[in-house]
């Protein structure tokens, strides 16, 4: 090992959202440099929204990310609503929760089914799998389509939703549509089980790597927290969302256009694995069963298992959406006027919205003047919170895999980055590996 010299340079890691690079230099068996570097063009949303009206902020900040646009819209609405003391009806709350489930399902299925599966099956993309494993690919496509149609039905469309507005919805689905959705969700269970079975057969390919870290996610006594809750941590007590700055502590490193975060340790992790680690008891019954198949229980410190946690969450989202539709039906879905525009009393104030989006906890924080014009904004993005943890994982992982071939080392490092499902557009955007 002493004479081991190698460099890894992966520019623009593929099958992730955005541009990031991995740089590794090993000399005489010693890791001299290991960087996770984001080269995405910065976009300056926090400056762009200053001077804009309260009823436009959700439309603008949705554009931070195409994949989690529903999550950004909801965090934005929650911040505006908190700033102006706006409350929404129980019915709208349930519909927003279904919207968030739809996005989690859509994003997780895209990641696990199209971006991670090729690694486990030894190919470069899902394209060759379409001919070698047509049944498996079609199963994932069916589930993905269901998630997309669910977003269309509740939000208007899957990306940059139109119906989600301050105070509620401009338009809502009918009970008939929701019943149809429920039927399809119920019918999707065999497909979910098929995907679980496929991943279980490939589970030996998931690297067995453990590095202890802190996990942060929303938590609630009532449910598996996604739309609402306090900020929870595996290292500290929970705190209200408005105290987010004392958790995120963002800082800037010169080699990256994305900010980073730390709390009790050098870094922390957010996302599906963090949520599962903190809120495991609140998972729906079938979701728990799927977690058990993979022996996934809290606290799991293997970041590669984030992929499995995502699958578990898809199952939870299906079951919880069925439950929410049942509740809407029992309460009787109330109709609302066409082109609904909830009456809002505009006032000055500051508000924080915290929502769990596919890649982890997301904060939007806005200050408005008395005319409802935004004077200050801050967005803390999940992927930014993960960048520091990714780099520390890479540093811990490289020495353990030095005896592999350069190609295997590169693939394993890329798989690690991919496991975090980084969304680099979000965090400016982010991923490339450079073995230098």
């Amino acid at each position, binding site marked *: 090992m002493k004479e081991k010299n190698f460099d890894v340079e992966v520019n623009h890691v593929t099958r992730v959202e955005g541009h990031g690079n991995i740089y590794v230099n090993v000399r005489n068996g010693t890791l001299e440099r290991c960087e996770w570097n984001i080269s995405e063009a*910065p976009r*300056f949303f926090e400056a762009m929204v200053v001077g804009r009206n309260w009823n436009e902020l959700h439309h*603008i900040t949705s554009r931070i990310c195409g994949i989690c646009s529903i999550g950004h819209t909801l965090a934005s609405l929650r911040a505006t609503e908190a700033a102006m003391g706006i409350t929404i009806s129980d019915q709208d709350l349930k519909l927003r929760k279904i919207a968030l489930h739809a996005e989690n399902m859509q994003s997780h299925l895209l990641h696990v089914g199209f971006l991670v599966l090729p690694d486990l099956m030894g190919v470069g993309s899902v394209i060759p799998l379409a001919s070698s494993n047509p049944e498996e690919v079609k199963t994932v496509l069916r589930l993905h389509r269901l998630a997309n149609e669910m977003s269309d039905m509740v939000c*208007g469309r899957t990306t*940059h939703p139109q119906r989600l507005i301050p105070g509620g919805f401009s338009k809502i689905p009918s009970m008939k549509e929701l019943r149809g959705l429920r039927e399809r969700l119920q019918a999707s269970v065999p497909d979910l089980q098929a995907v679980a079975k496929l991943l279980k057969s490939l589970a030996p390919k998931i690297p067995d790597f453990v590095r202890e870290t802190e996990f942060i996610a929303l938590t609630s006594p009532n449910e598996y927290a996604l739309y609402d809750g306090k900020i929870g941590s595996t290292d500290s007590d929970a705190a209200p969302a408005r105290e987010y700055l004392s958790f995120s502590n963002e800082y800037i490193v010169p080699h990256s256009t994305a900010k980073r975060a730390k709390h009790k340790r050098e870094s922390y992790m957010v996302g599906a694995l963090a949520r599962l680690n903190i809120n495991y008891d609140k998972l729906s019954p079938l979701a728990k069963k799927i977690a058990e198949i993979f022996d996934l229980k809290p606290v799991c410190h293997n970041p590669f298992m984030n992929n499995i946690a995502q699958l578990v969450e898809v199952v939870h989202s299906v079951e919880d959406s069925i439950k929410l539709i049942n509740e809407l039906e029992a309460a009787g879905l109330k109709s609302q006027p066409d082109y609904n525009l909830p009456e809002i009393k505009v006032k000055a104030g500051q508000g924080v919205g915290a929502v769990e989006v596919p890649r982890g906890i997301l904060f939007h924080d806005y200050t408005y003047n008395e005319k409802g014009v935004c004077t200050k904004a801050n967005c803390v993005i999940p992927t930014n919170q993960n960048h520091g943890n990714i780099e520390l994982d890479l540093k811990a992982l490289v020495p353990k895999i030095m005896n592999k071939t350069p190609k295997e080392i590169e693939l394993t490092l890329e798989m690690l980055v991919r496991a975090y499902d980084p969304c680099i557009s979000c965090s400016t955007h982010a991923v490339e590996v450079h073995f230098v």
Partner: protein
Amino acid sequence: MKPKVAFFDFAGCEGDQLQVANLEEELLDLLGQVEVVSFREVMKEHSDNYDIAFIEGSCTRLHDEARLKQIRKNAKIVVAIGSCATIGGINSLKNYQDLDDVRRTVYGDKAKLFDTYAARPIDAVIPVDAYVHGCPINREEFLHVVKSLLLGKRPDIPNYPVCVECKKNENVCAFERGQFCVGPVTRAGCNSCCVNEGTICWGCRGLVDNPNENSQKEVLIKYGLTVDDAINKFKLYFGWQERKR
């Protein structure tokens, strides 16, 4: 020989490439007609040998121009997809502010590490052959443009305002509901989707070729908007186009 296609992204949310992935089964059909040689978001393989380049996102840094010029050199046909690429999109909101202030607002005393210039559409840097407008793009329209290009035809993109489609859809006009909308000057082709969903047209497809901006602003003011608010409505998506005119 199937035509080779490649996807590239600059400053944007990648929501347009996501719409391509969201074609699902139709994407599998499309893959029978073309060979995808580069699509970083979904595949590891990459090649610089391609016929059609699809570009998402705006150019926001001087040093990204070289990459765009290289893509132009490699490709026979360049297609801009999504508002950021076709008109500058939401990114051009920052063009109205002092760019040094913008960097300081987001990155504080580390601002000088982060290079930026006025956000601009792709055709401000290289010639573009076809456009798929919208934020995000519409999947059907994307397929229409791709099919047209494969057949050697010019895609049929409307040059009339969103109002035409909105009227056909029998929507109640936003102005009659006491709201404000830029549909009268915005290029149609979206089937007035945002108004159909109960809201307003924000202008994501950009201005029609000969918009009557001044009379549109007068209408906004007549219905009760202040001059500043009327101008603000135009800044959201039309920033680069207005600057050019």
